[in-house]
């Protein structure tokens, strides 16, 4: 595949290495002269200095034949425009944008950007996971539909401690995928698995059932 990367920062640089390693044809657009030169020293002519929001620049690097454009600058607005220009002027089949403000996810979707990756959200989720008292963590949102994978920690005073998983009545469209015991580690659950205090329950559920599942598992 031919993949155009807009933004030669840390994300763009490491992404290009991974993609090159997988055998893809990669081109990086970077605006900053010094940064561009540094990248060129290592990666050679696949790094081009230019503004990835400008149609003329995108044209010059052959965006019209690109299979994918990935915009990973640190400005959400730039990434949006790069993806839109790629889509509407060059008919690039797939556009991926990095966003920093999680609230921008909706507008990117509405405007037809195929995939958004929110670095802030990912970092938050990881940190939340390390907080002892956080009630529910969203681990993964599936791209299609409204299903997501969440993690709930069973509080020490939950009424479910000592009960079998089969006794639970989970909300509709939900399933427990994994139990991570405090001492025993991860385990694929069966209906006979017994819940212990401070178990971490990894479950698949619908976004609208998040609150129900949290309330249920932590009820006293």
């Amino acid at each position, binding site marked *: 595949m031919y993949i155009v990367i807009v933004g030669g920062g840390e994300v763009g640089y490491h992404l290009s290495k991974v993609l090159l390693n997988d055998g893809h044809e990669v081109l990086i657009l970077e605006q900053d002269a010094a940064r561009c030169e540094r990248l060129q020293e290592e990666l050679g002519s696949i790094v081009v200095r230019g503004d990835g*929001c*400008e*149609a*003329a620049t995108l044209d010059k690097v052959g965006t019209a034949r690109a299979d994918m454009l990935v915009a990973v600058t640190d*400005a*959400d*607005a*730039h990434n*949006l*425009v790069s993806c*839109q*220009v790629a889509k*509407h*002027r060059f008919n690039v089949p797939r556009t991926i944008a990095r966003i920093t*403000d999680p*609230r*921008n996810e*909706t*507008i990117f979707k*509405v*405007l037809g950007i195929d995939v958004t990756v929110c670095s802030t959200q990912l970092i938050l989720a990881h940190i939340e996971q390390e907080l002892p008292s956080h009630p529910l963590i969203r681990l993964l949102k599936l791209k299609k539909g409204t299903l997501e994978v969440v993690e709930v920690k069973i509080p020490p005073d939950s009424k479910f401690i000592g009960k079998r998983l089969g006794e639970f009545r989970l909300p509709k469209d939900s399933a427990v995928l994994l139990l991570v015991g405090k001492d025993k580690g991860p385990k694929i659950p069966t209906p006979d698995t017994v819940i212990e205090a401070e178990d971490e329950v990894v479950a698949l559920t619908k976004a609208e059932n998040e609150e129900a599942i949290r309330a249920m598992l932590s009820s006293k």
Partner: protein
Amino acid sequence: MKVIMMGCGRVGAQLAGTLDSEGHKVTVMDIDPFSFRKLPSSFKGTALAGNGLDADALKKAGIEEADVFVAVTQGDNRNVMACQIAKHIYHVPKVVCRIYDPIREEMYRNLGLETVSPTTVVAELLKKKVEAT
């Protein structure tokens, strides 16, 4: 009309002043409150320090009741993104966007934004001056 403007540079401040003096309800936003000094002293509208790409700031500015949204910051991309948020998320009936880059301007015009490219407009005006005898 209730008008929200993003960007209080020379153009933003002058337009805000004019619309305000004509009786419209104007709210001007800028990330740098220092730029509000450019507003005429007679300005009776609201000057709001805030980012026009930020949903909370937009709501505070009253985007949900706005009739018009105008984006005139220095950044084409910020203008384009703010206008698309106003149009597609808040359904503001009239959205006007300044885009310096003529190619981007044409593209977003085709995508349904009302756009003005100062580059094209000023170049044409200058050409007329040059050719006038």
